[in-house]
């Protein structure tokens, strides 16, 4: 790789250009750069490590072919996020639908919310974590995408807009209503934190 002396220091655009010029090591660098973040995103959707890794691998195989035609109209990582998110959502759609249980009774069985008033400091109880996952899973797909990209990946509103293909205003609107729905489902765990 004469033109690409230090691939890890190269920008995404340089890596894409190098790959399009026939340098496969540039693609390896792209995979290594994004695999963890993409795996985390996939896992947040499919909630199964094995499936998440399959999703990421499939997405990279697809991107290997598509990257040759990538014109850079969006950032590489938002493009990759979109592929992974679509793959993950497709996988979840193909699964048998799991019914979300009635919230109230289930919440009563969980540990006292007072114990976990500071989620930033306390390790989350496994049951509460499961409850959160189910609440997020119950969101409409367009809301779930936005919430996960924001809360799990920390993408900006603009980046989320690129990934999901809408404008920033729509992203914020979806984020607001998604949080409102989650608040209704998880209220007992939020009261003491507010």
């Amino acid at each position, binding site marked *: 790789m004469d033109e690409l002396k230090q691939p890890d220091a190269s920008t995404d655009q340089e890596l894409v250009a190098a790959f399009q010029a026939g340098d496969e090591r540039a693609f390896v660098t792209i995979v290594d750069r994004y695999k963890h973040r993409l795996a985390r995103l996939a896992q947040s959707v499919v909630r199964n490590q094995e499936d998440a890794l399959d999703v990421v691998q499939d997405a990279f195989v697809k991107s290997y*072919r598509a990257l040759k035609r990538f014109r850079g109209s969006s950032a590489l990582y938002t493009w990759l996020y979109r592929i992974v998110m679509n793959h993950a959502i497709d996988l979840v759609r193909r699964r048998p639908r799991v019914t979300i249980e009635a919230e109230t009774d289930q919440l009563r069985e969980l540990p006292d919310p007072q114990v976990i008033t500071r989620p930033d400091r306390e390790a989350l109880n496994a049951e509460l974590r499961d409850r959160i996952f189910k609440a997020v899973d119950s969101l409409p797909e367009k809301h779930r995408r936005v919430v996960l990209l924001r809360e799990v990946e920390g993408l900006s509103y603009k980046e989320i807009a690129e990934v999901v293909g809408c404008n920033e205003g729509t992203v914020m609107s979806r984020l607001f209503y998604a949080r409102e729905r989650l608040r209704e489902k998880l209220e007992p765990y939020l009261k003491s934190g507010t």
Partner: protein
Amino acid sequence: MNTRIEQIVRQADGAQGPALPTDQAATAATHQALSGLLKQAYAGEPADARLAFMAGRVLARAKAAGNAGIAARLGAVWHLLTRHYALACAGAAVAMFLAVSATMVSLRPAAAPTAKPSKLRSFAIYETPDGSGFIRCFEYEHVSQPRTDNGSS
């Protein structure tokens, strides 16, 4: 977009902004707590050995898929060519049959009519697209009768 929603979302995400009315500030604070809860729930990343070797596996699969694609395209072209080849063979066989038939008919001596009608046999070889073939025998018989004096035949 609704400015109120935008302000609540931005403040819930930690942005500084103008002071919100009490109810909206409470919503923003609740959303902020919820955001922290979600971040905590989804914290951690897959620590699987498969991630360490993902690039190698992706390249291998991508190339294998590429080779399969090339093989499929070559197969399709070959299939097309063999179909055309078979049609060409069949066409040539028919043409040859017609040429041989015409030649034999023209070379047939204009002998006096015999009691036994003349017969012409020809064989055509056909090749089907799947590579098999068949032979067809064509037999022609000259049935014209000599004219009688009153013109009937």
